[in-house]
Every structure is written in structure tokens, then in C-alpha cells.
């Protein structure tokens, strides 16, 4: 049975899209059948990152009940290797679509939750996906909480920024605990020495103490990632890079959870 994994954070800019995209591709390269979904309807980014210009149906249409999920999925397997099975579902980045999604009422959100929950049947059971990965909007938004509730595992991306940490701590306590979600933390943008060398054990203890949640991985600041300007799938372009190794470790850990 496959898993639904939601990648979430309290603040924006913590690396959710970087993490979800590269994690999805890493899992696909490990031979898993993976679908990456952009549930960040406020600020969609995957269509640009994956460089897809022709889209017939968006995830917006699926949640609106306009079409079924198979119309939304785009097969990107060929992009990352002939043996891989990698699909994506995209959020519509047009201003009208963003406005439409932000004006939905509670009844619509409830139906959207039902449709996200039914992906378990249609994708995990019906199409044998091993992983469906949700990239979400930061903070406590309807669409993100829907994604969290539907997921088997939630990965929270956070930094050592003080306001991000405090917000993440509160969010874990007041939101995640209530839904009894299996949660893992990824600490991003950490100084290189702290992440990979001397400070590693100290960081591990610190995260456990602060969040009461296990640490899935630590990603140091890599200038190469800034330099890539979010135009490539990093783990695919740079298989030997330390970042790719870190993502591989994370993928292996997730597989064992």
C-alpha cells in the first residue's frame, strides 16, 4: 500500500517546493511510482519549475469536480529516466484561478477534503502509486490543512529563524497533535558546519527538545541551489552533489517508516 506525504511549513520560503520536488524525483529514481501534486493554490509554482506550458486540466478542476484525477496527471517519466515513473498534478497559476480558489466556502472545502481523501482509492489502490506527494501553502490555510488531514505522513520544513521556529512549534502543538499525524521535521538552510560536521548531534537533540518530533534530515545552505535559480530539478541535474545524497537518505528513511 502506498503513502500520501504532505510537505508543509509555517512560514513561506522554507524550501517546501525544493524539498517536495526533489524528494519526489529521488523516490522515482529509486524505482517508486510517484505523483507530485501542487496544492499551493495561492502561489502555484510547479508548472514553472517543471517547465510545462500546455495543461488541459488542473488540480483546481479535479477539486471543483469538473474532471477525474487521471485527466490531471501529467506523465513526466521520460524527463528523469526511462525506468522511472514520475507524474505531476499542477495548480493553475492564473490570477483568476487563484482568486477563485481563495473565495471558496466551507462546504466547498469539505468536498475538496473528500476528493483529496479519495485519491487514496484512485491513485494508491487503483493505479498502484507508491507515493503521492503534496506540496502545500505555508501556514494555516484551508487547502493545506485539507492536505495534512489526507496525508499519512507530514514533513514540516523549517529553518533556524526564530519566528519560523516559534510558529512551527505552535503549529505542531495546536494543529498536528489534534489530528494525530505522523510528522517529521526537515531543518533547512543550516550552516554547513552545523549540518554535516561538528554540530550534528547537537542539532538532533535541539530539534527533539524543541518540537518533540523526529528529525528526518538537515539541509545546509548550498550556494549551488541558489545558483540554480529554481530552474532545474537539482537531484536529477547533479547526482553527485551532497544535496542529492541528503535527499537519498531522506527517501530511504521515508521508505522505512
Amino acid at each position: 500500500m502506498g503513502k500520501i506525504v504532505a510537505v508543509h511549513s509555517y512560514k513561506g520560503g522554507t524550501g517546501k517546493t525544493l524539498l517536495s520536488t526533489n524528494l519526489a524525483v529521488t523516490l522515482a529514481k529509486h524505482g517508486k511510482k510517484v505523483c507530485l501534486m501542487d496544492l499551493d493554490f495561492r502561489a502555484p509554482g510547479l508548472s514553472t519549475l517543471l517547465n510545462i506550458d500546455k495543461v488541459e486540466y488542473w488540480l483546481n478542476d479535479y477539486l471543483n469536480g469538473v474532471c477525474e484525477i487521471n485527466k490531471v496527471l501529467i506523465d513526466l517519466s521520460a524527463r528523469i529516466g526511462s525506468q522511472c515513473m514520475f507524474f505531476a498534478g499542477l495548480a493553475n497559476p492564473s490570477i483568476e484561478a487563484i482568486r477563485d480558489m481563495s473565495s471558496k466556502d466551507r462546504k466547498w472545502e469539505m468536498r475538496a477534503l473528500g476528493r483529496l481523501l479519495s485519491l487514496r482509492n484512485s491513485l494508491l489502490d487503483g493505479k498502484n502509486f507508491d507515493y503521492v506527494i503534496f506540496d502545500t501553502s505555508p501556514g494555516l490555510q484551508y487547502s493545506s490543512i485539507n492536505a495534512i488531514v489526507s496525508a499519512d505522513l507530514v514533513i514540516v520544513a523549517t529553518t533556524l529563524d526564530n519566528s519560523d521556529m516559534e510558529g512551527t512549534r505552535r503549529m505542531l502543538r495546536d494543529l498536528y497533535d489534534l489530528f494525530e499525524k505522523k510528522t517529521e521535521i526537515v531543518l533547512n538552510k543550516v550552516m554547513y558546519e552545523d549540518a554535516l560536521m561538528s554540530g550534528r548531534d547537537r542539532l538532533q537533540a535541539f530539534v527533539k527538545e524543541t518540537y518533540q518530533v523526529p528529525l528526518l534530515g538537515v539541509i545546509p545552505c548550498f550556494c549551488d541551489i541558489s545558483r540554480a535559480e529554481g530552474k532545474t530539478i537539482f537531484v536529477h541535474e547533479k547526482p553527485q552533489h551532497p544535496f542529492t545524497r541528503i535527499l537519498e537518505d531522506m527517501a530511504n528513511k521515508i521508505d522505512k517508516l
Partner: protein
Amino acid sequence: MPEREVLGGKPLQILEKIKESLERLNEKMEIMIELQKHGKRELEAITPEAPLDVMTLLSMPDHLRKTAMTICRLGRATADEVAQQTHRARAVESAYLNQLVVMGYLKKERKGRKAYFYINKEGQG
């Protein structure tokens, strides 16, 4: 079934009828207790249809949230099926499910001896 042979068809049927009636009575009493606890007017305000969205789930007391989330996941289920997921007693889940029906979040439908609970059709539309 061997018991049926020993008892003959009729007595067993009668026993089942009695059990069924007792179960219904039990549910009715649970609803009445609920109504008394919260005051009829307050409950009527949110019935018959209240959307069971995530924000509503968040604001629910812990014991009801667990039951409501299980129904969200299963779509449509009996108290027995919910109890299997939550590892709580069937009677407990039955009480919580009926409470959620009274609050307007769930609907209930009887099929033979079994009662199925599901999220408001109107909302699922």
C-alpha cells in the same frame, strides 16, 4: 448455522428483533441525552446540515474529532467499522456517531440490521 437448527428459525428471529429494537431504543435515548445536555434550541440551530470541514474538525472536542475523522476517511461506515479503526468500544462509537448526527455533521441510514453513518450528501454533492 447450527444454533438456528437447535433453536429452530423462529425463536432466533424473535431474539434478533428484540436486539434490534433495543439498539434503536438505545440510540434514541442517546439522542435524547444529547438534546438535554445541549438544549434543544442550540442544537436545532446547526442541524440539519452543517459542513464537516477541517476547521470544524479542529474545533471539535478530541473524542468526537477522532470519530468524525474516521468517517471522513472511510466515507461510509457502521459503528463497528469505526470502532475497529479507533480501537474504542462499539457502544462508545455508536454514541459519538449519533451525537454527530444530532449536531448535523453526519447522516444515518438503516439497512436491515445495520446503521450506516456518512457525511451529509448535500455537502458531498
